[in-house]
C-alpha cells in the first residue's frame, strides 16, 4: 500500500502525476487542427529544458534552497489547482493549423508549470532516469492523441471546430477530464507526502 508519506517514493505515482500534468487529450483538443508531426516537434522542443531540469533537479533545488519535501508540496498544490480548473473548464480550441512549433505549441502549450514541477520532483526523488521518464510520459502523449483524433485516410475530414465541443460528442474530452481529476488526486497525495515527509 502506498501511504501518503511515501507516495513520492513510488515512481509509478510520480509518473501518473506527469501524465496528469501533461494531459495529452486536453492539449491535443486545444489545437485540433494542428498536425501530429507539428506537435511532435513541439514536444521535442519542450522536452529539452524539461530534461535539463530533471537531470539537474538536485542542483536546482540546492540553488533555490528548497528541500525535496517542499518541492513535492509545491508540485502537489499546482497539480491540484490546475487539475480542478481542467475538470471544470473545457479547452478553448485554436483552429489555426499553422501554429508555431516553438511558440505557442512548445511554449506555453506543452512547457507548462505543472509539468516542470512534476519533472523536478521526479528528478530529485528518482534521479536522472526518473526525471527523463517523467518528461516522456508528460509530453509524448499529445502528438499521439493528435494522430488518433485525425480521420483515417479515405474518410471525410471533420469540419473545423470553432467552438468548444460538448463532451457527449467528443470522447477525448472525457479522457481529458479524467486525467485532470487524476491530477487533483495525485496532487493531493504529493501535497500530503511533502508535508508529512522528514
Amino acid at each position, binding site marked *: 500500500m502506498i501511504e501518503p*508519506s511515501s507516495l513520492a517514493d513510488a515512481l509509478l505515482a510520480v509518473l501518473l502525476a506527469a501524465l496528469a500534468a501533461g494531459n495529452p487529450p486536453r492539449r491535443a483538443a*486545444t489545437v485540433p487542427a494542428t498536425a501530429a508531426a507539428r506537435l511532435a516537434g513541439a514536444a521535442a522542443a519542450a522536452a529539452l529544458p524539461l530534461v535539463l531540469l530533471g537531470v539537474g533537479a538536485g542542483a536546482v533545488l540546492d540553488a*533555490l*534552497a*528548497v*528541500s525535496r*519535501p*517542499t*518541492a513535492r*508540496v*509545491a508540485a502537489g*498544490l*499546482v497539480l491540484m489547482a490546475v487539475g480542478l480548473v481542467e475538470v471544470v473548464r473545457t479547452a478553448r480550441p*485554436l483552429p*489555426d493549423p499553422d*501554429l*508555431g512549433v516553438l*511558440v*505557442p505549441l512548445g*511554449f*506555453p*502549450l506543452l512547457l*507548462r*508549470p505543472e509539468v516542470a514541477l512534476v519533472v523536478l520532483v521526479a528528478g530529485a526523488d528518482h534521479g536522472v532516469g526518473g526525471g527523463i521518464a517523467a518528461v516522456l510520459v508528460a509530453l509524448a502523449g499529445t502528438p499521439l492523441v493528435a494522430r488518433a483524433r485525425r480521420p483515417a485516410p479515405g474518410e471525410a475530414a471533420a469540419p473545423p471546430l470553432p467552438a468548444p465541443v460538448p463532451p457527449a460528442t467528443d470522447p477525448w474530452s472525457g479522457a481529458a477530464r479524467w486525467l485532470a481529476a487524476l491530477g487533483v488526486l495525485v496532487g493531493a497525495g504529493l501535497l500530503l507526502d511533502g*508535508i*508529512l*515527509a*522528514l
Partner: protein
Amino acid sequence: MRGSSEGPDGAERGTDGEAPVPPEDQAAPAAPAIPGDRAPGRRRRLFSGPRRLLVGGLVAWLAIAVGLRAAVALPERCPPVDAAAAQRAAQLAVGWFADHQQADGRWTYRYEAATDRDLGGYEIVRHAGVLLALYQALGRGLTEAGPVADVGLAWALGHLVASGDGAALGEDGATLQVGASALLAAALVERRRVTGEHDHDGELAALGRFLVGVVEPSGAVPQVVDPRTGPSVGSYSRFFTGETFLALARLREALGPDPWEEPALRVGRYLAERRDEVEGWFPAIADHWAAYGLAEVARWPDGGAGRRAVDPEGTAALHLAGLFGVQVRYESQRTDRLPSRVTRGRQTLGAGLGTIGEGLANLAALADPSGAGGVGHGGSPALDGQRPVLVERASCVAGMLVERQVDPAEAAAMADPERAVGAWYQFGVTQMDDQQHALSALLLVGDLLATTR
C-alpha cells in the same frame, strides 16, 4: 439643386447628365469611420488565438513562480554548524544558568534583557527540566554545569512530598504536576550516568513509585495529582505523558526491570498507538519527550524487545520524525522579514526550536544501526536509511539555534551584558525553558555532528 441643368425633355438634371435621385430614395449618410475599427458589429479583442495562449501561458508561469516562491517554496535557511560551534553555544547557555541562579537554587524564570529585569513567575516542571539539561551538559564536558545543577538539585530534593507510596516534586498541600516528578527522575538518572554517583537512588525510586502509582491502566498519565482527591480524571498534559515514559524507561535502565518495565511499556504503547486520538490532540503532538523515551527503551539491554513491544514497526517513530521534519522546514523559512514574516510568521521561541532538535536527535539515534548513538540493537526499522536526513534536519536546528543565540557582541548592547548573553529572546524576553531546550538540543545534536562524517 446644385449643379443641375435643364435636360432635353425640360426636366432638371444633375451636372453628370443622370436623372437626380429623389430624396426619399437616397441612402442615409455613412457614419464617420473610427480609426482602427474592424467591420461594424464585431467586438474588438485585445488578445485572440495564439496570442491569447502565449499571454495566458506567460501570466500563468509568472503567477505560479512568484506565488510558490512567496508562499510555499521559500528558501530554507540552515546556517552551517559543526560540533565545536554547538559546544560553544551550549557553554554560553550554561553560563546563563550560572549567572541567573538564585541563592535558594532556583533560576530567574523570565528575564528582560533591555532592562535587566526579573519578570517573576516560576514553573516547577521547568526547574526539573533545567536539571536534566545541566546534567546532560556535565556529561559532555561542560564541567561548570555540575555545581549549578547540584544547587538546583538540592532545592528540588528539598521539595519532595509524600504521595501514595512514593514521593513527588511539589509544594506540600498543593496540586502536584506529574511532569515535574517525571523530569526530576529523568535528571537523577542522567546525573547517575555522568557522575557514577548513586547517592540519590532512594529519592529516585520514590519518584518512580509515585509515577507508577498514577499511570492509568490504559497507559495514560493524568496531568496533576490533588493531595485531597487524587489523580485528575480526563485531564492530560501535552507533554507529561512523554515525560513519564522517559522517566520510567530510564528507571528501568538504571534500577532494573522491576517494577519499572511494565508501566514504561504500557505508557510507551499508549503514546505510540493512540494518545493523540484518545486525548483529542489535533494536530498530533510533536512530542520530543516521546522521542526521548523511544530512544531510551531502545537502549535497554534486552536485544530490542522493549522497543519492539512499544513500536514494533517503528511507525510511531517515523510519524514523529515527519512532524519534526515539517516543523524544521517551516521554521527554516522564517526570517522575521518580508515576505516570510507574512507567509510564515515570526521566528519561534528558543524553547520551541530546541524541542525540535531534541526530538530529531533522539530519532537519529534510533535510526543508527551501528549503535554509535548509544542505541544498541533496538533501532527502529521504519527509520532504516533515514539517519542522514534526520541528521541533516537536526543540524539545521542547531545552526538556527547558534545563529539566534545572543552572543557576547550582541549582549554588549544590553543593560547587563553578562546576564543577557547566552540566551534566546523573543520581544526582548527570555524564559528559562528557552535555555533548557536549546541547551539540550545543542548537546544532543553536537553528539551527532561529532560522530557523523
